[in-house]
């Protein structure tokens, strides 16, 4: 049972931060509650004050931020991302992956910010944010600083944020037109046990790949990109990229640090990463051909 508590409803980021400081260590930020309430029901976490963030206007909404970024507020729910025409247009990887996050009920309540702050190892959105070079805006009581996704995910349930820091939004750079992606997952349960994502940006003439993002998640403690695998796919023609899929799979699987658990041994998960990487590359190149057809 959840122990007695109070809910407060700050109207601004600063009020939320002050409520946290006033909570003497027993306050928690509360967005969708899909992770937090599970912990509280089990008695793993106990809080006297929940700071309901959903009324803070600046944490909501999906909008363009300048010419080349899209800003997603931390309290934006998974289903809003899934159904956003703007994201479907500019960053289709996000809504495509969202369709398979958890289930409709969790997506109706859970938020992007809650997902990233919790940094559950089996999260899809942590890997996607990493692949898309998300810039995470965090309010620390004085200013809002930007933490690149590459520095944000430190470990299992561990991020670069300090206690009391408030995740405000994520800015996603809009990739150049013609950018294509692939995303493969292996699921036995509600949360995936292994995921691999690939994003390939075309050269100016469109004949090959200029920049690649390749990473895996869910198998280990935190999502990781592989610069070595990415290098294999950069500044090559599309045909060469296709020919390197097996090598990319091998490199990604070798570099990964999968953990043995009920869903498989370390060796088994390395094999999954290898296979999923190759499939993600053919999915990516298939999308390019479909776009050009």
């Amino acid at each position, binding site marked *: *049972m959840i122990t007695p*508590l109070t809910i407060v409803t700050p109207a601004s980021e600063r009020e939320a931060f002050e409520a946290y400081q006033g909570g003497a260590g027993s306050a928690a930020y509360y967005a969708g509650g899909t992770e937090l309430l*599970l912990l509280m029901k089990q008695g793993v976490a106990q809080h006297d004050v929940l700071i309901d963030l959903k009324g803070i206007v600046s944490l909501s909404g999906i909008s363009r931020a300048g010419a080349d970024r899209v800003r997603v507020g931390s309290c934006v729910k998974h289903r809003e991302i899934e159904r956003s025409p703007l994201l479907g247009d500019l960053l289709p990887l996000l809504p495509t992956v969202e369709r398979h996050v958890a*289930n*409709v009920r969790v997506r*109706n*309540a859970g938020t992007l910010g809650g997902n990233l702050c919790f940094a559950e190892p089996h999260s899809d959105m942590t890997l996607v944010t990493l692949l898309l070079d998300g810039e995470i805006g965090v309010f620390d009581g004085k200013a809002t600083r930007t933490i690149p996704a590459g520095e944000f995910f430190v470990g299992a349930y561990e991020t670069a944020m300090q206690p009391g820091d408030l995740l405000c939004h994520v800015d996603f750079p809009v990739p150049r037109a013609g950018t294509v992606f692939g995303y493969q997952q292996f699921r036995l349960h509600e949360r995936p046990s292994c995921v691999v994502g690939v994003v390939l940006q075309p050269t100016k003439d469109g004949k090959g790949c200029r920049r690649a993002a390749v990473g895996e998640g869910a198998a280990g403690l935190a999502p990781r990109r592989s610069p070595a695998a990415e290098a294999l796919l950069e500044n090559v023609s599309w045909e060469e990229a296709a020919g390197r899929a097996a090598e990319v799979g091998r490199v990604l699987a070798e570099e990964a640090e999968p953990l043995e658990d009920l869903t498989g041994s370390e060796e088994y998960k390395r094999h999954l990463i290898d296979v999923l990487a190759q499939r993600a590359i053919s999915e990516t190149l298939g999308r390019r051909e479909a776009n050009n057809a």
Partner: protein
Amino acid sequence: MSSLHGFDLRMQVNGQPVELEVGYNELLIDVLRDRLGLTGTKRSCDMEVCGVCTVLVDGQMVSGCTTLAWEARGKNVETIEGLAEGDKLHPIQEAFVEHNGFQCGFCTPGMILSTKALLKEYPQPDKATIQWYLHGNICRCTGYKKIIDSVEAAAQAQAQTAGAD
């Protein structure tokens, strides 16, 4: 009257206004079952996986087991008890009866409410859409085939009524 640990919850439940003093820590499922006697909403996994606790809040499906009653402030909550009109079953309920969409019936309130949300969003879903939308509702009896048949029949019935209007 709100106090340190509780507040005055005003919401609509199945179209009826309800007002009661609720703890901030109380879960929606407990308020519905224990305080309002609406025991059609079930609890099983208690971790947002199985869907037997599904209720609709302003038409959106949520897990009653892991939603604070707080979230229902000013909202319209629908439970399985709200679907039939007297002895007249809702068309989705009719479809589940007609097509044997349940055996023990434990998952059924959640299945039917999820189907209601599905058909509002996708009035003519294909099989893949039904499977995708309902994958968070677990049934240990039917093997799902008859549930999908029931949902397809409910979609058809809904289309016919819409056409007749």
